[in-house]
């Protein structure tokens, strides 16, 4: 049974308008709506988490952890139309907690980093896109702003909300991240 995150770009655009309705149905307690909500947002969530941690299997675990937190917090979400930034805020917190623990235990971090590299070599899904290929080389702050803005298509204000910084900081981080990515891809032999 495959339990690895897939990086499906397809459906996000056309279905975002249904988010608020789906969230309200979930808050009402319609169990089928949860499956629809997860089906709609699992791929973008996974792509973000995988972009941050590298390993597909670890991303799968963290995505599940984030979904559990989402389900537990959903009854308290007062603005259903703000679901996307709220979801990524929870995902970010989950990833941050994991990274904090990983940095506390250096041996585990090294092990996971090795796994991540091995996963990347094996799956080859993310390496099909140049931008995603370069993400792993960037520091976490620059990596996540690129994922949120360019891969998840979140507007600047939502990125700022997820990251908990002013929009101006997001802009400067984006600028720095693009420059770093361009340099990295140039070193790898890609044309910037």
């Amino acid at each position, binding site marked *: 049974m495959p*339990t690895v995150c897939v990086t499906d770009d*397809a459906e996000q655009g056309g279905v975002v*308008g249904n988010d608020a309705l789906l969230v*309200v149905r979930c808050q*009402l307690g319609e169990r089928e709506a949860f*499956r629809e909500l997860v*089906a709609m947002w699992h791929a973008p969530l996974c792509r973000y988490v995988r972009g941050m941690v590298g390993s597909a299997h670890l991303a*799968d675990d963290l995505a599940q952890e984030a*979904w559990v937190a989402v389900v537990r917090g959903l009854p308290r979400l007062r603005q*259903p139309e703000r679901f996307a930034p709220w979801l990524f805020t929870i995902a970010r917190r989950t990833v941050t907690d994991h990274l904090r623990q990983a940095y506390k235990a250096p041996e585990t971090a090294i092990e996971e980093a090795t796994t991540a590299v091995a996963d990347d070599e094996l799956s080859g899904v993310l390496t099909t896109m140049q931008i995603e290929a370069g993400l792993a080389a960037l520091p976490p702050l620059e990596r996540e702003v690129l994922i949120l803005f360019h891969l998840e298509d979140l507007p600047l204000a939502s990125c700022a909300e997820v990251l908990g910084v002013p929009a101006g900081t997001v802009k400067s981080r984006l600028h720095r991240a693009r420059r770093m990515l361009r340099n990295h891809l140039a070193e790898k032999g890609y044309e910037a």
Partner: protein
Amino acid sequence: MSEQNRAAHRAVPERLERALAMEVSLRSRLRHVAVGLAGGCGAAMIAVLWATEPNALPARTQAAFAGLIAIGLAWAAFAGWVLTLRRPLFARDRVLSARIALTATVVTALSGVALAAVRGSTADLTATAAGGAVFTAAAMRALVRARHRLHELLQLRDALRQDTP
């Protein structure tokens, strides 16, 4: 289900679907509601029994009563914690739970008042009736708030359905 929806469902790992099905389970929520109510109402009944006892109870019986009350309250607190943080109630679950809670509270209050009337003094009866009234009022307030929230969400859902093509 459309082809697009099928594709989306395939992208969700089965393990995640199972975990989320457990997370949103209504049965698990109602179980905790029942546990909390049984603990709280049981503790209240034992307290009434103890308070309306005509003669002073032996120390061991008093300790047993106190232990049982503490256990009941602990179960009620545990259920409250679960239903607040681990398995929060969705709007419809809240209404259902509030109805069950109101029924249990009324039954407990009436039983307590009956016990106090048969066994206790006028002061015991007054105190039990007042306590029962307070808890019943709290349960009614919870039901009103739950129904208000449900109504609000239903209106929002209908408005969003009209706006969504």
